[in-house]
């Protein structure tokens, strides 16, 4: 196993740290100074986004990027949500929001189910050809999307799925399969084989063992997978742009339309409000899930 699959230990269990330290030395001041400046760099855009979204336009024109809003207004948020033009229509990015929700829900459920079945089959019903397939699948994860996009457009068009909700879901299933399979395979590989053997002796079949034994034991890894899928699919742009079709454009695509195709004066406050709203879901997932999020990254990192 790669060391990365173990998440960073929670505070309490962390082994006692090295060096005695905690003297106030120049070195420690330096450490804090560095971390502080770095934190500023990482926080500044978020700060700018939030303040800008709360300012009226004439305040923005004064060019005080970092200034706090003089009189706070939530108008830009309302406009962004329900009035701003996203290319064809002017109903705000709420349509994109609901489109994204409609895409994300099945794109979380199906890839996880399929990943779980794949991982389960690979770990317990071993066969040489399956291992070989798996290796190929992992290599597939490295193929740039651009190589596959046009052929996939053709295939989906032939199946009458192009530019539809099922179509984009199928695409997300395909592109997420390597990581999801890997995630579940590694998880099941860490379970004792005896468990499986006992179930076999008791006469369990492929599906019965999967649904009654393996799936109930998989909660932690399902959570990790769900976090990865929600953030990944929500943040996707290129696949949604190509495959979802006009009716189902996800939020990221609409957001980009709002900002990069507006004519006339650019309403920066509305733009920033729209950007925040779009980023809200993954950020919320991130802040709530904390350690799990990192675990997902680490698991995704071992691909290959």
């Amino acid at each position, binding site marked *: 196993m790669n060391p990365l699959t173990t998440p960073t230990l929670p505070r309490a269990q962390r082994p006692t740290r090295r060096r005695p330290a905690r003297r106030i030395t120049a070195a420690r001041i330096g450490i804090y100074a560095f971390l502080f400046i770095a934190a500023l760099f990482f926080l500044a855009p978020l700060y700018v986004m939030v303040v800008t979204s709360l300012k009226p336009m004439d305040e923005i024109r004064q060019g005080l*990027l970092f200034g706090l809003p003089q009189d706070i207004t939530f108008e830009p948020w309302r406009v962004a949500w329900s009035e701003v033009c996203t290319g064809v229509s002017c109903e705000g990015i709420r349509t994109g929001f609901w489109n994204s929700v409609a895409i994300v829900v099945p794109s979380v459920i199906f890839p996880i189910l399929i990943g779980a079945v794949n991982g389960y089959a690979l770990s317990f019903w071993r066969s040489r050809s399956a291992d070989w397939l798996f290796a190929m699948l992992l290599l597939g994860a490295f193929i740039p999307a651009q190589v596959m996009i046009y052929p996939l457009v053709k295939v989906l068009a032939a199946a009458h799925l192009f530019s539809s909700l099922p179509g984009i879901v199928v695409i997300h299933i395909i592109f997420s399969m390597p990581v999801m399979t890997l995630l579940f395979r590694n998880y099941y590989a860490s379970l004792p084989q005896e468990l499986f053997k006992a179930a076999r002796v008791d006469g369990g079949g492929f599906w019965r063992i999967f649904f009654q034994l393996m799936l109930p034991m998989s909660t932690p890894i399902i959570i990790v997978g769900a976090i990865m899928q929600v953030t990944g699919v929500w943040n996707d742009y290129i696949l949604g742009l190509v495959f979802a079709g006009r009716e189902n454009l996800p939020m990221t695509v609409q957001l980009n339309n709002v900002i990069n195709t507006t004519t006339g004066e650019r309403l920066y406050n509305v733009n920033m409000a729209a950007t925040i709203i779009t*980023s809200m879901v993954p950020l919320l997932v991130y802040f709530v899930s904390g350690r799990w999020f990192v675990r997902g990254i680490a698991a995704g990192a071992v691909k290959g």
Partner: protein
Amino acid sequence: MALTVLVGYLGTTLWSIRVSMSNSRTFPQYDFVGLQQYERLFDNERWLMSLQNLAIYGVLFLLACMVIGFLLAVFLDQKVRAEGALRTIFLYPYAMSFVATGLVWQWVLNPESGLQQAVRQMGFADFTFDWIVDQDKVIYTVVIAAVWQGAGLVMALMLAGLRGIDEDIWKAARIDGIPPWRVYISIVLPMMGPTVATVFILLFTGVVKVFDAVVSMTQGGPGTASDVPAKFIMDHLFGRANIALASAGSIVLLLIVIALVVPFMVARNRSAANRATA
């Protein structure tokens, strides 16, 4: 089930290779013109420009992400207070989409109303930071945004790697009187080889795909100054109806990935195998 995906992955790749050797325009054709499209591709200034941008972007992004991420991890590993909060701050951009990242930075770097203007109003009237509208520098702004988004990821993985290192090394180093920074560079970093390789692979696959960030931040402009291969391919697939040329471009991209990722994977697997307890 995995089989269908193999058809999906393998089939589509083979199909793209086939199309890249044809004369297809709007619709795929199956005549055979050998490597003509590739010759055309490498005569195309926009493509060459986009490759050059990818190289600049790739090298700077990887370097900056690695260095900043590693430094953050090392500094966080010094028993600092509020480590959890700092970690959260460094990593949150990674939860944001490239589109959102690009848009935020577009706004911050906008010379008329962003950082430049803000600093000027603070009294530095000559302050200039207009890279985003400068043909020669625009690609660096994309690097800044991408590093902002990705450095936290490196930090998280490196930190996990640091925590996995044997504590005894520190005791030994202290007894020998080796300064900590030397230990990090000469002992710890080499020990983290597999982690570094993993991070590299992860970042690199992201580099080749870079598309969203450029589209949302600069739309490839000014002109085509910040064009990248992924955008070139998408434009030729859907905007300019030249799927043969686009396919050729995508295969070149695939070859670049193979050429750079495979050695790293081999190296990593070897060192992983060396450490007996897999």
